[in-house]
Each structure stands twice: as C-alpha cells, then as structure tokens.
C-alpha cells in the first residue's frame, strides 16, 4: 500500500473549500465548541473557595472531560456525511474513476475532518485555560495548571478526533442514508472517551507517563481503524449498492 501525498492533499483541499462554502457545516463545527467554552468556565468560576481538594480535582476532571468531548463530537457528524454525502450528490463515481486509492481517499477525508476538530479543541482549550488562569481561585488554578493535562490535551485532541472521524467514516461508507449515518456516527464515537475518562475521573492518576501511554493506545487504535475503514471502503458497494466478491483498491 502506498499513499500519495499529492492526492491526499487534493482531497483535503477540496473538502476545506466545500466547508468554506457550506454555512451549515461551518455552524455545525462552531456551535458545539462555543457551548463547551462557557460550560467549564461557569462551572469552575462557580466553585466555592472552601471546597475540599478532592472536590476541586473532580471539578477539574470534568472540565477536561468536556475538553475531550469537543474533538469527539465535532468531526463525528461531518465524517459520517463524508462518503455517503458524495454518493448522494453523484460526485463519488467520477472521483473513484481516478487513480485515487481507497486508502488515500479515506485518509484525505479523515484529515479534512479531524484537523478542524483538533484545532477547534485547541482553541477552546487555550481560551478556557486563559480565562480560568486569570479568574479562578488559586486552589483551582493549582489543580488545573498541571503539565499532564496539557500533554493530554495536546495528544488526545487529534487522536480522539481521529477516532471519531474513523468511526464516522466507517458508518458513512456502509450506510445508505445520510441522517442515519450522522446520528450513528456521533453515538458510536463516544466510547473512545472511556479511555480518556480514566484520567479525568482520576481512576488513573493524571501523570505525563499515563497521558503518553493512553495516547499510545489511541495511536494504535487510530492506525488500526484507518486500515479497517479502508477495507470497508468497497467501490462496488458504494456505486451499485451490492458488495463485491473482492474489493478493487
């Protein structure tokens, strides 16, 4: 399997152009992060200064859980639309008659979905942390301003976005209805949060090593998911609705 960067870049660029021209997609991307911008800030700023340390840690954990939900939720519905949307518009067949391989196609689609998801997560994270750093109680800031959380956010945001993207794309390549694909895509991508929740709920003590290990697990899952989605991508099924005996690469 060889992946050509030029073709992948062409897919990504085309997707970005479509996002720019499609206000619905832009709103979908932006609304959710805005909600997640205000909820953690109001939660933390509303904490009493006399709260015990465990309660503060719990509240901080919930903030990061919200931060990790953004990269999961934002790409999910867009990824779920990615392939079946092309099929419904009638644009898929011409694309599949080019030398573009299925790996390149799904990778391009995935990158175009997960990059905005990850970048929006970073943006929200930076704003939330900056506001809380200046306005929150020092005890809370102490619990919040820990290196492991920064490492976790840096690594988990793209990896969770990638997972969500793969799940959405997998549903998209096998679904026959856009609405079902989008609903399923969002729901099916949530279980990935289970891994990161081990940190946010303090089941695993948030340390840099734990963050790196969890990130490594997510990398393995994401790479595996890319391969699985690539194999699920069946040109014949997508064009005719009938599965091929062997799939064409």
């Amino acid at each position, binding site marked *: 399997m*060889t992946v*050509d960067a*030029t*073709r992948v*870049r*062409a*897919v990504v*660029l*085309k997707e970005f*152009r*479509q996002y720019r*021209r*499609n206000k619905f997609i832009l709103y979908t991307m932006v609304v959710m992060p805005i909600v997640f911008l205000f909820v953690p800030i109001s939660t933390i700023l509303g904490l009493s200064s006399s709260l015990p340390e465990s309660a503060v840690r719990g509240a901080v954990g919930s903030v990061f859980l919200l931060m990790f939900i953004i990269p999961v939720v934002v790409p999910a519905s867009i990824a779920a639309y990615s392939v079946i949307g092309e099929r419904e*518009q*009638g*644009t*898929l*067949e*011409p*694309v*599949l*008659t*080019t*030398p*573009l*391989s299925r790996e390149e196609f799904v990778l391009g689609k995935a990158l175009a979905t997960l990059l905005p998801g990850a970048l929006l997560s970073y943006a929200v994270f930076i704003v939330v942390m900056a506001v809380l750093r200046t306005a929150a109680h020092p005890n809370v800031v102490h619990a919040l301003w820990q290196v492991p959380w920064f490492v976790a956010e840096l690594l988990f945001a793209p990896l969770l976005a990638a997972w969500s993207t793969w799940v959405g794309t997998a549903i998209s390549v096998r679904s026959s209805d856009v609405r079902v694909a989008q609903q399923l895509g969002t729901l099916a991508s949530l279980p990935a949060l289970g891994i990161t929740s081990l940190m946010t709920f303090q089941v695993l003590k948030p340390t840099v090593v734990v963050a790196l290990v969890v990130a490594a697990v997510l990398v393995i899952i994401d790479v595996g998911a890319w391969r699985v989605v690539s194999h699920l991508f069946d*040109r*014949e099924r997508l*064009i*005719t609705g*009938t599965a*091929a*005996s*062997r*799939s*064409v*690469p």
Partner: protein
Amino acid sequence: MVRDVTASATAVVANGDDEARGRVGDLVVDLESKDGDVDRWRPLVNSKPVWFVRRRIGFGVRPVSWQGWVVSVIALGIVVATLIGRGRSTSSTASIVVVVGLYLAVGYARSVRRTTSTVAESVQSIDDAVPRSARSPGETVARAVLANVTQRSLRETAQATGSPANAIDVTNLTKRFGERTAFLDVTFSVARGEVFGFLGPNGAGKTTTVRTLSTLIEPTSGQARIAGIALEPENGEAIRQKISVMTESPGLYAKLSVNENLEFFVGLYRLPNGAARIGDALEAVNLSARANDPCGSLSKGLRQRVGLARALLNDPEIIFLDEPTSGLDPVATREVSDLIVSLRSRGVTIFLTTHRLEEAERLCDRVAILNTTLRVVGRTDDLRQQLFSSSLEVVTSEPLLRPDDVFARVPAISSWRRDDAGHYVLETLSPKATAPAVARALVAANADIESLVESHHSLEDVYLQLIDQDAEVRP
C-alpha cells in the same frame, strides 16, 4: 540496448543499408536471450513469496534503481551485522538473504521485460512513421526483425508498455449481481484511436460494462485488458491513470467553481502544469469564460461540458463517455460531437455509450449492440448488410393491377412485398443495376412512378431489428 536497437532501426528506416540491418539483427539476438531469461524467471516472478514481497514491502523500488541498491545494501548490511554480532541466528539471516535474492531476481526479470517491451514500441513507431504501402525493403526488414523478437512475448510486452494493438480487449466477460445478470459472456476489442459505440436498451448492461472496464466494479468472470493492462484488482490504479470516464451525470461539486472542480482532479491525477491543462480543457469545450462560476449555477448542458473537460485533463488513452449528450440541446450536442471527432484525430480511443443512434452512426467507427449478451459488433455498413438484404423501394401513384406480372419481368428481383398501397419493396442483390429494368417494367405496365430508390437501413433499423428479435425470444 534498446536505444541501440531503435537507433539502428531508425537508420534502416532512413537508409535501408545492410550494415544497420545487421546491427539490428545482432541486438535482437541479444535481446532474445534476455527474453529467454524472462521466461526462466517468470514462474518465480509469479510465485507467492515474490508476490508477497512486492505487495508488502513495496516493489515500486527496483534493484536496478538507486533506491533499490540502497535497500539491497541495507539488507546486506543487516545480514553481515547479524553474522558478526550473533553468529548463530542463521534463520533470520537466511530469510533476509532469501528476501533480498527474490527482490533482485524479480527486479532483474522486470527490467528485462521492460527492455524487450520497448522494442515493441520501436515496431509501432515504424508502423506509425511509414505506411505499409510506402515502406521500403529496408524498412520492411527492420520492422520484421523487430517484430520477430517481440512476437513471442507480445502479451507480456503489451502488459509492460501499455502499447498494445488494441486499446481494449474483452474476453468472455460476465457480471452478475446475485441472481441478476448485468451482462453475460461479452467478447469484443476496441482498436487504438477508434470511436467505439456501445448501444443497447435501458438495463442492457452498458453502464455496468463501463463501470467494470473502468475498474469501479469487478467482473464475475472473464478477462479484459484496458490500455494493455490486465483488468485485475491490483492493476486498478494503473488502469485508472490511463483512462478517464465521463459518467452520465457529470457529478460536479455544486458549491465549487468550475476551476476548483478541475483543480481537484488535477491533484488526483498528479498532473504537472495544472493551470495550463485546465485552461486547455476548458478551451476545448468552449467554457473558458465560465471558469470561475460555481458549477451549481450552470445549466445541465454546461455542466456536461465541465464533465467533458474533466475527462480530458489527464490526456487519457481511453475515454469512456456514458451518454455524453444526454439532456443537451442540438447546438451543445453538435459541440460534443465535434469534440469527439477532434479527440479521435488525436488518437484517443473513445468508448461511447449512447441512446442516440444517429449520433453513433455518424461518429463511431464500429458499434456493438448489447442486450445482456452482445448481439453484434461491427461497422454499421457491415451490420446493415448482415441483417438486411439489399432492396429497391418503388412508389406508384396507384396500386399495380398485377404486380406479380410486372416484377416477374425483372429476373434480378428475388422476391417482393407490398408495404402499403402503391409501395413495393423489391429484394435484389444489386439495386443500382436492377433499377433501370424495374423502371422499364413499370412503364410497360402503364404505372405512374412516384419514386424508385434503393432502400436505406439506418443503424436504428439494425438496432430495432436485433432488439425486436430479443423481445420475441424472451418471454
């Protein structure tokens, strides 16, 4: 080596001198020995371990290239390091040696195959440069010598160079979707530079055939070669690089401009000078002025033209056009027809599926009529002759009183029938030669002749005849 052969062949073509001819002969003998090497290596090349190596560690890197040498040197370094460092890890060493050995062997065999294949191109270049009738004895010898070396492995050379005589070869191709048969046991060839019409009623399997040949879907059985490449799952990308497909619905991104749509496909084909190619393609379909318009704002005809421009971008060897004039007005239809003619003059092979029979008759060198099975393939004139006997049509102002007597006076008429009052169809082997005798016989019978013409059967008649036959056969 190949440069030498080509240079010598060129000299023969230019001068026809014996020395150059002898030089070609020597080089050919040398190449033949290498071709023998290919035969020896072929079982190895096709063996499962080599397939595995090629697929899994990537055989885009060849030992004959610098990347290949780097890989080989690194692998050998590992072997040496293993031998020095551990001494007893013979199994890992052996496996690396086997992999490297297979790698080098396959690379060598492939390079030899490529070499002999290029000779086939030389033959082709002689054919292209000098028509058979105008060929000098020297040129004939050069061609014969060159052709001889490649004849034995013509299939392999065609596969390697992508320069076979036929652009498309289809043999016993069948596609089934479960219980439903889309097309059955289809066999035909399309020559390079030919405009090939693919006709048939709705549901006959035309679009499925195009999808199969363009690697979108896989045949259930049978073989095909597209642009000289076998229609196999592993060759999908290579085939798609050499073809383009214009689907019935152009499938454009409505919110992107014409330019942006084409830029996307320039990227997918990895084409250099993208802007220039887009400019040329838009100019070819007379759409340069609308380059920045969103595709969603274009009429159906204009969108169809954008689809055509997209199909031209990669300068394909074969273009599959699926109903290219569907929904177009007469002017736009004429423009598409002109474009097809100009593509043919550039040597592009065109596989045209259409319901417009007059269009097919006008544009296509040959046509095939499909109705799940392939009913006929051939030039329209030949098909007419196959399906219809030649005849004369006579119209008189009043019905003849005794037509039997009138037509019996003309021995060349084998049979006749009356289609309408005063309208007679006379079967004859030679309508032109028989017409004067018929006229005389009619005048002798005091008939007023309104017209006396040779019957003309259009492609539509051929088509309807065949499809009607199918309808009678199938309940």
